[in-house]
């Protein structure tokens, strides 16, 4: 791993950059209203929320090589369960989140058993098929609002008294959750489990013959990445007081894949950048080019797949003047080049 073998110097540098970004994000709300309109806080919030999901997505796709075309099923379930629990059970955000995590863990476990035998294209089809199953169910199940989905969801409370309805407390709550998610993802990547995952990505047979039960490990990372998606769904249900069935739709799962590819998978930071690009550029293009937004985003996507399949992190780590940046953006498993 980038940090473990060249001593403390690069590890502290990467932490420096991460701390700097965190500081900027913490100070961002102070600028709203003066430097830029409050709407950009809402846009940044969408990036924070989807960023949590993309960390889980990257663990599965970037580190373990399994690109899921149905990750919206975890997101949608996290949103629906949380919304229903806030409306009928208790307005604490934690109850909704835990229930969402619970159900998603069951889904992740059961689907994991089914999905683990497939690889590459068949994994894509199977995750695509399962997420469509959730989409069709959500659309036709009247109890959870059918095609209109759930509306009028009460804003949950962090602790009795602090409501997450207004934006600034919710912003810091989401930033906190993303920071925790990033720290957890980093630890997983740097754990022995993470190292074996990278092994599975490159040569699953060799991993098997060293004594690792690779199907079990794949099921485990599939479930974990689902939990990240669940938290992300719960936060979105809190941010926007409605949950439409389109949270399960293929276009959302496709967007996640796009975010991962644009940013560059297998680096944790890449997908976060990809999320910022897709959400920010998407909004920007849609406002200025009106109906032509998809043409540009699709074109950017094609160019990225053709010319830099490893995504933005590849470009940055190549262009980056200082070793610092490449440490942060360099992919964990292809950093050492004869230094």
């Amino acid at each position, binding site marked *: 791993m980038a940090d473990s073998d060249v001593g403390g110097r690069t590890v502290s540098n990467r932490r420096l950059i991460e701390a700097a970004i965190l500081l900027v994000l913490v100070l961002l709300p102070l600028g709203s209203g003066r430097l830029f309109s409050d709407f950009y806080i809402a846009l940044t919030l969408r990036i924070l929320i989807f960023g949590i999901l993309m960390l889980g997505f990257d663990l599965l796709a970037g580190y373990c090589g399994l690109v899921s075309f149905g990750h919206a099923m975890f997101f949608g379930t996290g949103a629906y369960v949380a919304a229903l629990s806030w409306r009928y059970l208790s307005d604490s955000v934690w109850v909704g989140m835990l229930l969402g995590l619970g159900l998603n863990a069951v889904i992740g476990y059961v689907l994991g058993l089914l999905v683990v035998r497939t690889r590459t294209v068949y994994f894509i089809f199977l995750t695509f098929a399962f997420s469509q199953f959730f989409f069709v169910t959500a659309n036709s199940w009247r109890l959870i609002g059918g095609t209109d989905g759930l509306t009028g969801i009460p804003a949950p409370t962090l602790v009795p008294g602090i409501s997450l309805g207004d934006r600034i407390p919710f912003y810091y709550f989401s930033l906190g959750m993303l920071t925790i998610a990033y720290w957890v993802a980093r630890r997983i990547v740097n754990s022995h489990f993470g190292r074996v995952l990278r*092994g599975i990505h490159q040569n699953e047979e060799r991993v098997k013959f060293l004594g690792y039960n690779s199907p079990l490990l794949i099921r485990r990372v599939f479930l974990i990445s689902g939990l990240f998606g669940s938290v992300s769904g719960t936060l979105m249900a809190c941010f926007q007081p409605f949950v439409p069935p389109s949270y399960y739709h293929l276009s959302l799962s496709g967007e996640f894949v796009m975010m991962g590819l644009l940013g560059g998978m297998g680096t944790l930071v890449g997908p976060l950048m990809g999320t910022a690009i897709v959400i920010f550029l998407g909004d920007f293009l849609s406002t200025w080019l009106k109906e032509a937004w998809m043409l540009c985003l699709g074109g950017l996507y094609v160019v990225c797949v053709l010319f830099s399949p490893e995504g933005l992190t590849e470009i940055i780590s190549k262009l980056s003047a200082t070793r610092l940046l490449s440490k942060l953006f360099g992919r964990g498993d292809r950093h050492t080049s004869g230094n």
Partner: protein
Amino acid sequence: MLLRTENISLNIGGLQILRDLNLEIAEGKITSIIGPNGAGKTTLFNVITGRMSPTRGQVWFKDKNIVGLSPFRIARLGIARSFQITNIFERMSVFENVCIAAQTNFPYRSSIFSQVSKDVATSRKAEEILELIGLEQMKNRRARELSHGDQRRLEMGMSLAIEPVFLMLDEPTSGMSPAETAATIDLIRSVGEKVTICLIEHKMNLVMTVSDKLIVLNLGGKITEGSPEEVASDERVQKIYLGTA
């Protein structure tokens, strides 16, 4: 007897690839399996290590039948294996390749909560193995950048790193220069003191000098077995290898 196969047979689509093989691998000895191409040597390895399941027969390892076990369970019993076509993690550093193998010896081998940076035991074990196979200068090189011979030695090092009881090497010196082959022979001999080794090899000089016992296979059946000298003098072997009697 460390490992015993009991009339192992395998036929795929009517083709009889292994025919009632009864072999014995003695503990602490270096056994070599020789025979022309297509004799079923690698297939035998695949059956023993669980990559293929035999049509009939049992494989007894320490008096435990391991047919039907999945490869990772067999590996955990202490059976390590290298492949005919090098099977390593190409986009990882040499050090990382060995670490993944070395960390299987510890309880936290695939735990989420343990941190690789704090794991001194694995690193030390990996350093030991790298010295043993002579790749410690290449430690940070990416496995893909190694020469073919070095890659084969790396794979052998990874197999050693899981501290096996029984090491199966499938043509370990193929593609190696004479110097590298000689170094590998010494390595096999030194490792052979602690670990039972089974080799598949074509280089007769290596087989003759290193092995304690030879098993000759042809067309899926066992022709003969015995000490190198006995096998060399057996005319059936000569007929197979030299085409004349």
